[in-house]
C-alpha cells in the first residue's frame, strides 16, 4: 500500500492504495465518485472517461498511482456555483439520454470539445467522441444538444462583437 494525493474536482483527497489499483476503482470505490462508470473495462466504451491533468482519459486504462500529485475532474466538476454547464442544460432539453448510464462521460467529453472548438462540425464531433459508446443510441439527440450550445456560442460572440 502507498498513500497518494489527488485533487478531485478542486478538493485534495488522500487515500492508501495498492499499486495495481485502477484509477477507475480509486474514484468509484475509494472516493465514491459514482458518475465515473465501470462498463467494458477494456478501453472500448469510454464510460469511465474523466479528465486527468487536463486531458480526457479512459480511467479503466490508467493506474491510480499515476494520478498521484495530479488533478482529476469528473462531470461534477464542470458545474459552476451550482449551475449546470450549458451542455448539461442542452442535454436535458434535447433528451440526450435514455437510460443515462453513459451521460456523465458524454457530457464531460462534449463539454471539453466545445471548450477547445466552440463550433465543431459533425465530423469533428464524431471524431472527438469516437471513443464513447451510447448503448441506447441517443447519438442524434447528443448531436442536437451540442449543436445548440455551439449556436448559442455563435450568437453570443456575434452579439458581443465590438461596434465599428
Amino acid at each position, binding site marked *: 500500500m502507498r498513500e497518494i494525493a489527488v485533487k478531485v474536482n478542486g478538493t485534495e483527497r488522500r487515500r492508501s492504495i495498492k499499486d*495495481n*489499483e*485502477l484509477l477507475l476503482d480509486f474514484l468509484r470505490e475509494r472516493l465514491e465518485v459514482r458518475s465515473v462508470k465501470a462498463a467494458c*473495462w477494456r*478501453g472500448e466504451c469510454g464510460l469511465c472517461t474523466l479528465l486527468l491533468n487536463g486531458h*480526457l482519459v479512459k480511467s*479503466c486504462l*490508467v*493506474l491510480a498511482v499515476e494520478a498521484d500529485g495530479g488533478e482529476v475532474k469528473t462531470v461534477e466538476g464542470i458545474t459552476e456555483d451550482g449551475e449546470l454547464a450549458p451542455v448539461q442544460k442542452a442535454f436535458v432539453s434535447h433528451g440526450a439520454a435514455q437510460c443515462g448510464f453513459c451521460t456523465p462521460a458524454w457530457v464531460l467529453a462534449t463539454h471539453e470539445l466545445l471548450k477547445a472548438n466552440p463550433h465543431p462540425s459533425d465530423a469533428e464531433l464524431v471524431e472527438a467522441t469516437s471513443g464513447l459508446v451510447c448503448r441506447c443510441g441517443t447519438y442524434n439527440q447528443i448531436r442536437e444538444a451540442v449543436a445548440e450550445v455551439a449556436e448559442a456560442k455563435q450568437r453570443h460572440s456575434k452579439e458581443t462583437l465590438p461596434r465599428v
Partner: protein
Amino acid sequence: MSFGSPYTTLPDFEYHKPANLDEVLGLLKEYGDEAKLMGGGVGLIAFMKERLMSPAHVIDVKEVKELKQVTRSSGKGLRIGAAVTLSELLEGGALKEEYAVLQEAIARVADPMIRRRATLVGNLCEAIPWVDSPPALMALDAAVDIAGPGGERKVPVESFIRGPVDIDLGPSEMVTAVEIPQAKGTDSAFEKFTGGSEFSLASVAVVLSKEGKNRRAKVVYGAVNSTPIRSEEVEAAIRDGLTPGSARKAAEIATEKVECVDDVLATAAYRKHLLRVVTTKVLRRMMSR
C-alpha cells in the same frame, strides 16, 4: 488471446517511476523478465487484465525525458523516442508529407483518448497483428534502437516483430526509440478496412518514389497474417509508375499472392477480397494527388 474475458482487476505488482533512462535500465537489469515497461499502458493494462502478462514489477517510462524526444537530423531522418504518444506525433507535424503513410495510419488508430496515451513504440512492442502503425513503419524501412546490459543494437522493424506478441527483445532490454530513414521524394499512403469495428481486417502501407523507372517501392500488408507482410510482387507491379493499369495489376497480384489467415475476425477468403479493395483504394488515392 481471448480478449473478452471479464477480468476487471490487475495482478499484483510493484510500480516504479524512474526519473531518467539510466534508472530505467538499472531497474530492468535488476528485475529482468519479472519487469514490464509501461508507456501509455493501453496494451500492458489490457494484457494484465487478461492475465496474459503478470509482471512482478511495472516500470512507468511515460515521463522519462530522454524517451520523450522527436529529433530530425539532416541525412538521417526521424528519431522518435519510446515515450512519444501518437497524439504528440500527429500534432507535432513531424510526419506530414514526407511520412504521410505513418501520419495516415496513426490518425485512425482507436480514438483520440487512446491516442493521447498510446505510444508508437508501444504499438510495435505489442506486436498485435491488427495494429496499424507497424506496417507503415515497415514500409518506411524503420528500425528500432534497443538498449540493454549488452550495450546498444539496432534492429529493422521487419525482423523485430517475430510473430503475434513476439518480439526480438531480451529480458533486460528495452526499445528506446524508432528510427525512420529519410523519405524525401517519395509519395506514401495508408489504407485499411475495419468493417466498422476498431480492428483492421486488412491494411496496406505503400511508399513509392515520385519519379523515374525502377523506383524505390515498398508495399506492406497488415492484419491479414500473424505479422505484417511485405509483397515484393506487388512492389514490382508499381515500380515503373502508377497508372490505372499498373494499379489494377497490383490489386490482382495482392489478392492472388499475399497469404492470409482465418481467425475469429475474418476468413482468409474474405481477407483476400479485402486485399484487392485496400490496394485499389490506396493506389487510386495516390494517383489522384
